[in-house]
């Protein structure tokens, strides 16, 4: 009798335990907004957690992250690249409780920029829905200086087989457009750390980027590109205000690479930028998403924040490819460079 009761009790406990474990694991599924704070700044990113046959998959800002889930506990590894080009991991360890994941993160691997361990938290994403909100334009004109906030600078992305194949044979040091002083274009130009200026005119915004001294125009009158307008790395941009968010859609792009790593951006890519201004008008935030199913299984996302500094000057960016070509010649690599012509555009 006692044994039977014990069995029932044990089975009940086991059932409840399994149920609670399953329930907790199931709760991880979905789209989360992660925010992580170190001593100097807060980073924000979209985290997608999905069940797979073998367990779980995780993507941060569109790029794969290693994940382990055990009951209520989660461990995530998201790679990033610092400004000197060193790749490192951020290890996020946390627990799910009351539909909020929270814990601590540490930087792993050698990086030039050392980050102190800090807290992180993830809450369910509130989806951004395109609304028919009345346009309420705000004044974004001025000089903008990049801050170090927001961007995880996720390094690897979820590439299609074609995207992977391209990257396999890519040598950023030789093949990047900007090492030979050619524009890298969008989306990179909108995410780099150099200052830029926005000039507002009646039917357009003109953006002057310090990096490589590049200019783009965002048309606010809904115009289509003229018949013979060639594709370019800045493409053709149309903007519209949804409430006080400026949404820019860009197409007519020329082939380029997404970032320092060299993932391909095809001519069929479409780029969406969402700019919003803080209430005091002094902080500008952008979320930049690349839609390019030829190369990416998920759209890569970058974020950037700038502060208004009217005293900032846009310096001239003179670029002379001699400082790229001559060392290559001295190292006897010129033949190899020429053989790689099909990797450049």
């Amino acid at each position, binding site marked *: 009798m006692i044994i039977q009761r014990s069995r029932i009790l044990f089975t009940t406990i086991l059932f409840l335990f399994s149920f609670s474990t399953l329930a907790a694991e199931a709760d991880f599924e979905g789209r989360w907004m992660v925010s992580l704070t170190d001593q100097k700044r807060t980073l924000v990113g979209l985290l997608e957690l999905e069940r797979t046959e073998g367990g779980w998959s995780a993507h941060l800002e569109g790029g794969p992250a290693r994940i382990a889930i055990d009951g209520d506990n989660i461990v995530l590894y998201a790679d990033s*690249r*610092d*400004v*000197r*080009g*060193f*790749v*490192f991991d951020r290890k996020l360890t946390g627990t799910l409780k009351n539909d909020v994941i929270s814990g601590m993160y540490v930087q792993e*691997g*050698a*990086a*030039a*920029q050392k980050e102190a361990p800090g807290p992180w938290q993830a809450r369910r994403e509130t989806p951004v829905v395109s609304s028919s909100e009345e346009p309420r334009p705000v004044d974004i004109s001025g000089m903008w200086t*990049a801050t*170090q906030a927001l961007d995880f*600078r996720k390094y690897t992305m979820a590439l299609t087989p074609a995207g992977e194949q391209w990257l396999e044979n890519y*040598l*950023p*040091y*030789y093949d*990047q457009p*900007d*090492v*030979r*002083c050619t524009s890298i274009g969008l989306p990179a130009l909108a995410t780099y*750390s*150099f200052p830029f200026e926005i000039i507002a005119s009646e039917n357009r915004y003109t953006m002057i980027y*310090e*990096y490589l001294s590049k200019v783009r125009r965002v048309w606010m009158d809904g115009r289509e590109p003229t018949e013979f307008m060639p594709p370019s790395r800045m493409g053709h941009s149309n903007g519209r205000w949804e409430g006080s968010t400026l949404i820019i859609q860009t197409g007519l792009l020329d082939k380029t690479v997404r970032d*320092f*790593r*060299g993932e391909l951006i095809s001519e069929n890519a479409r780029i969406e930028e969402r700019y919003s201004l803080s209430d005091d008008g002094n902080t500008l935030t952008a979320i930049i998403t690349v839609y390019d199913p030829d190369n990416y299984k998920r759209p890569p996302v970058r974020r950037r924040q700038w502060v208004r500094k009217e005293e900032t000057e846009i*310096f001239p*960016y*003179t*670029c*002379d*490819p*001699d*400082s*790229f070509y001559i*060392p290559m010649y001295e*190292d*006897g*690599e010129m033949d*190899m460079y020429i053989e790689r012509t099909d990797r450049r555009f």
Partner: protein
Amino acid sequence: MSKLTDQGRARIGAALILMFGFCIFLARPVYSHHSFTAEFTAEKTATLVGTITQVWFRNPHVRYLITVTNENGEEESWDARGSPVVWLARKGWTKNSIKVGDTVSMYGFLGRDGRKMLSIMTVTLEDGSVLVDRVPE
């Protein structure tokens, strides 16, 4: 055993030269740079003290060639790389800050795989002043 004719010798000589050339070609590292990511290592830093022999204060690569004397007393030329001109210039580091013939001390990340390269973090000039190359993220 037949003696080699002059023509024969010349042929063998040419073949040897070709083979030697081929070996050199094989031995040459095909991709010695790989990528900017792989150019330097975050794990090793060093200080180079030496004389500046070339100054390239221009984009895309700010470069200083610096001659240093190694542990064996031999002179070596190192390729030190800096950030884009605009970042350095904003902090007062211009093309006149470091000149050919100056003796300087450069601290930075070392090139990967033993390459004689340095990713500059600081430069100490003869008068003791320090130039800092700290790029914003």
